[in-house]
């Protein structure tokens, strides 16, 4: 791929003094999916890392759905993996059902997804972190920051634990998820905490606010967990994974994959009786009774939201997903709810196959603080507090994959900053990671941010099948991936090239002796058909990703060339940085609408400015000229 030159951005603050290193270069607060990737990425880049978690055995907990990937999200996992991350390979080792989503919609729209054994996943990543050189896990509850006030603004130089211990470091990455001032709701009952059975971090919240980090409040929820032994499985439709599963990780050995027994999920439906129960009790739902003030996500509504907002839908689908091979816990996907416990039971018992279902845990809603991501720069460093990096749900996002992606970016950059090296920033045309961060840093989310493929303007370039071809070399240049990944990439590129040579030279008698390359260009011809008929192709043993790459190269060439041209055309705008203190009011000639939007969103680059609705090309051109004037005046 024709990769444009990378921009030479700077970190928002000068690096910390070398003398002040403390227990580690980088301190990671939180052992969720963001914390794991942050710790691992920082260590890969060469930093010494301490990871602080409430409990050392709760690293990598799946608080909600025991599944990884999906449309848009699966691409993120692939990218994290291509950059040497933990999530993809761990999911491959612990997955109990794999499915490539979107295969019927065209090769550029596929996203891998899996159901995980949540216990095995947790054990797996705990092992990975324990065996990562340079990472040490410290059990404790972070309660505040160590702040160096000698400079112009307060610099975070470590963390104070609830038991009084103080840990100093160059940079601190906070990945506390939904634990900041978290409140759980089940009907009228409320309790403090971000996850059942665990505490909350109130101290950090207050301290971040004191340091000038702007906080907001969001809401999310989780469905009931049921006892597998009490469900009448025989009455329900099974839903199985792919017959030939595809792993997430480019490093996973396909001969030993999948490692675990593969299971089926089961489908059932809500019905008129369920909906009646919900309507009759809606005044007891915290959202409707006004007890929750945070805003819930539109893409993951509670069952009460579904019934109230889509009143004409007669039934809603429920996926019963076993959480583990070794337990009887079943995740009732589709009925996230915060209704009172007794109502939850009644409504679940109204559903076919669940008439006698036993509750292992009731559903609940969580309200929590998040830090407005508009206060971050593209390395996920706080703009106001030197030394502080934020990643994951604390930035107002949703999902393990989005958290992992940010963890990688924040961890790598905390390490790079601490050692005074150039930052690692990805463009929107390079990765969903780039889209995610770029969207976040100008957003003030009103619902948790989730990745959708429609957020990417260069969707055809950012595919799951080519994440390694897009990112491995770049990751290697930052030390994020090792030589083995480079070798794997080279081997894969050789397989693809070999396939292309075969396609160009072999002719198909059944297609009027045209070359296979020409035949494959026809929209209705799939590579699989050609492989079935031509031994030369079959001999290459292409996997699904190779096949997708070959197919996309053949069929989408024109579209991809056009997108690359668009990227090239807009590239220079992405590199022009806009100072955050730019006074838009003083810029003559800008239209009022554009001026108001720019002042409110404060885009960091000309490219980001051009994507704001209401900012039109002449406004961007004017802005470019003003910025040039400013640079010139600064110089003289």
């Amino acid at each position, binding site marked *: 791929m024709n990769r444009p030159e990378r921009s030479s951005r700077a970190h928002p603050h000068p690096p910390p003094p070398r003398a002040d290193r403390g227990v580690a270069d980088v301190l990671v607060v939180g052992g969720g999916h963001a914390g794991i990737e942050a710790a691992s990425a920082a260590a890969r880049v060469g930093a010494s890392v301490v990871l602080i978690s409430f409990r050392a055995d709760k690293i990598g907990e799946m608080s909600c759905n025991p599944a990884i990937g999906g449309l848009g999200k699966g691409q993120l996992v692939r990218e994290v993996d291509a950059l040497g991350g933990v999530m993809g390979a761990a999911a491959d080792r612990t997955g109990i059902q794999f499915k490539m989503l979107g295969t019927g919609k*065209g090769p550029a729209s596929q996203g891998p997804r899996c159901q995980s054994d949540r216990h095995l996943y947790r054990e797996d990543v705990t092992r990975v972190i324990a065996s990562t050189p340079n990472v040490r896990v410290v059990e404790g509850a972070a309660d505040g920051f160590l702040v160096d006030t000698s400079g112009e603004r307060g610099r975070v130089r470590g963390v104070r634990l609830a038991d009084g211990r103080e840990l100093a470091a160059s940079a601190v990455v906070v990945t506390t998820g939904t634990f900041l001032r978290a409140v759980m709701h089940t009907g009228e009952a409320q309790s403090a905490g971000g996850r059942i059975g665990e505490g909350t971090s109130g101290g950090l919240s207050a301290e971040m606010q004191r340091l000038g980090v702007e906080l907001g409040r969001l809401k999310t929820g989780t469905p009931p967990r049921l006892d597998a032994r009490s469900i009448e499985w025989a009455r329900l439709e099974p839903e199985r994974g792919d017959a030939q599963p595809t792993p997430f990780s480019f490093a996973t050995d396909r001969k030993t994959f999948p490692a675990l027994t593969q299971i089926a999920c089961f489908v059932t439906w809500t019905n008129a009786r369920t909906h009646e129960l919900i309507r009759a009790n809606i005044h007891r739902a915290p959202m409707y009774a006004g007890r929750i003030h945070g805003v819930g996500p539109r893409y993951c509504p509670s069952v009460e939201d579904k019934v109230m907002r889509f009143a004409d839908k007669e039934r809603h689908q429920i996926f019963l997903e076993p959480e583990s091979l070794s337990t009887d816990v079943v995740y009732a996907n589709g009925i996230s709810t915060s209704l009172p416990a007794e109502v939850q039971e009644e409504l679940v018992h109204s559903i076919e196959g669940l008439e006698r279902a036993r509750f292992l845990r009731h559903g609940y809603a969580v309200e929590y603080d998040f830090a407005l991501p508009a206060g971050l720069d593209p390395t996920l460093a706080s703009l106001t507090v030197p030394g502080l990096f934020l990643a994951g749900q604390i930035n107002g996002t949703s999902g393990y994959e989005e958290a992992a992606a940010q963890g990688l970016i924040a961890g790598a950059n905390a390490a790079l900053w601490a050692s005074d090296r150039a930052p690692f920033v990805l463009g929107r045309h390079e990765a969903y990671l780039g889209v995610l961060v770029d969207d976040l840093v100008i957003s003030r989310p009103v619902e948790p941010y989730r990745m959708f493929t429609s957020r990417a303007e260069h969707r*055809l370039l950012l595919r799951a099948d080519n994440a390694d071809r897009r990112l491995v070399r770049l990751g290697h240049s930052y030390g994020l991936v090792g030589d083995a990944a480079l070798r794997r990439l080279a081997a894969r590129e050789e397989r693809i090239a070999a396939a292309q040579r075969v396609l160009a030279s072999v002719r198909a008698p059944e297609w009027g002796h045209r070359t296979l390359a020409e035949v494959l260009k026809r*929209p209705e011809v799939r590579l699989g058909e050609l492989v079935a008929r031509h031994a030369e192709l079959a001999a290459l043993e292409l996997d699904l990703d190779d096949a997708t790459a070959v197919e996309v190269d053949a069929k989408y060439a024109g579209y991809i060339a056009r997108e690359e041209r668009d990227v090239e055309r807009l*590239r220079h705008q992405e590199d022009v940085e806009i100072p955050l203190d730019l006074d838009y009011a003083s810029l003559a000639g800008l239209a009022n609408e554009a001026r108001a939007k720019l002042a409110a969103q404060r885009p960091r680059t000309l490219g980001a400015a051009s*994507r704001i609705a209401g900012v039109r090309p*002449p406004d961007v051109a004017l802005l470019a000229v003003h910025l040039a004037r400013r640079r*010139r005046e600064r110089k003289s």
Partner: protein
Amino acid sequence: MVAVRPTIVAIATPAGGGERALVRLSGSRAKELALDVATPKLDPSALAGRGVRDLRVHDGRGEQPARIVWFSAPRSYTGEDTVEFHVAGAPPLARALVARLEALGASPAEPGEFTRRAFENGRLSLDQAEAVLALVEAQSREAARAAEALLAPGASREHERVREALADLVALGVASLDFAEHETGDVPVEALRVDVERVLADVRALASAGARRPAERGHARAALAGAPNAGKSSLFNRLARRGDAVRALVSPHAGTTRDPLVGELGDGRFTVELVDTPGLEPLTSEPGDIGEPGDTGEIGDIGAAAQELGLAARRSAAVIVWVVDATTISGGDDPRLAAERQALGATVPVLLAWNKIDRASAAPPPRELTPLGLAAILPVSAVSGVGLDALATEVVQRASAVETGLSRELVVRRAAALERAVGALEAACAGLGTGRGARPGAGPDGRAASGGAGGLAFDLVVEHLRDALDALDELSGRGTPEELLERIFARFCIGK
């Protein structure tokens, strides 16, 4: 390393003259692309330095005569190699040439982009660049409003309706890429194809409705305005050199003109679009005046709508002809004059047509009218024809002197955008297939094509639909992913 910027192309029709269109091409590949379209084939050395040459250009469909003017970097407006093609003023020809140049690798230039490059290449000072860009900005907003007013009555509403229908289809397509089948249901390929075809027909209708309007060809506009029954329509009928345009309905009843009427006025070199607008004052519908007794409410509504259209027409005009009935005005200090002038609210030159001098006391228009902010005062009579030539000359000169290049460019861009939308929708339709079952040669051994009834993978169909929406949004500003998501969440119950 400094990356090479793409070569850009746009129609940059000069102001005034409607007879030629100018296509400007700037960038390192400008000369190469010019050589590609030129016929007979030129030697590359022919385009050295700067110069002018008459030749023919291939636009992919046919040949057309063109005068090319070339400049070599850095001695051009943009500081890059630049080639200008002066072609016949028919927009389809200029657009065909632009399309050909884009197919060869040029990118469409955005408003202000030539100027921005000129600045960045040191050809313009900051002050110059800022001044030009501020003008471009102001004009492009004004022109966007103007372009709207140029459309046939109701066309912008129709544009909006079609755009909404298309946005819904895009949301449907995007939803099925972004979410699993169990959330959004299977793609209803047949129904989608029918819907896309309907939108395609609507966009084609928009495009051809636009092409019939003289203003769509990019002429500057003059608007007739004034109190009801001041004689605007009579003047319009005398002035307008109209082909098949409808003659203004003249009646002694005030308030007869409800839709702006459009004609042309020219002096051989320049053509100006002349628009008749409804009377300035709010209509007081008296029974027996117009319409049946009892439906005054409806007349009131029509009157308000007519006033709005009149306002839009005045806003888009390069010059306003303010028609005053000299027989009813007592003098320059008549308060009605000041009130009318205020209602006009124009920032463009206003010519006062002192009408009905055949019946007025024949006194010259009073000097004290000048404080009303007039460019000229012209005594005329629509009945006897006195003063009409002078008025016509003044209108054409004033209108053509006003810089209308940008609004003309916008009109041409709009047509090009509609064409692009048509192309994208056609591709989407073809991609969705023409029906189920095998097409001749669809697969080896006559098997039915795999992967749906259509010819293209669904994600490419969606890509074409998004393209079409982008094209429709080009003038009004881009839609955002958030808008699409909003539509999806309103329609589908997403989430397991």
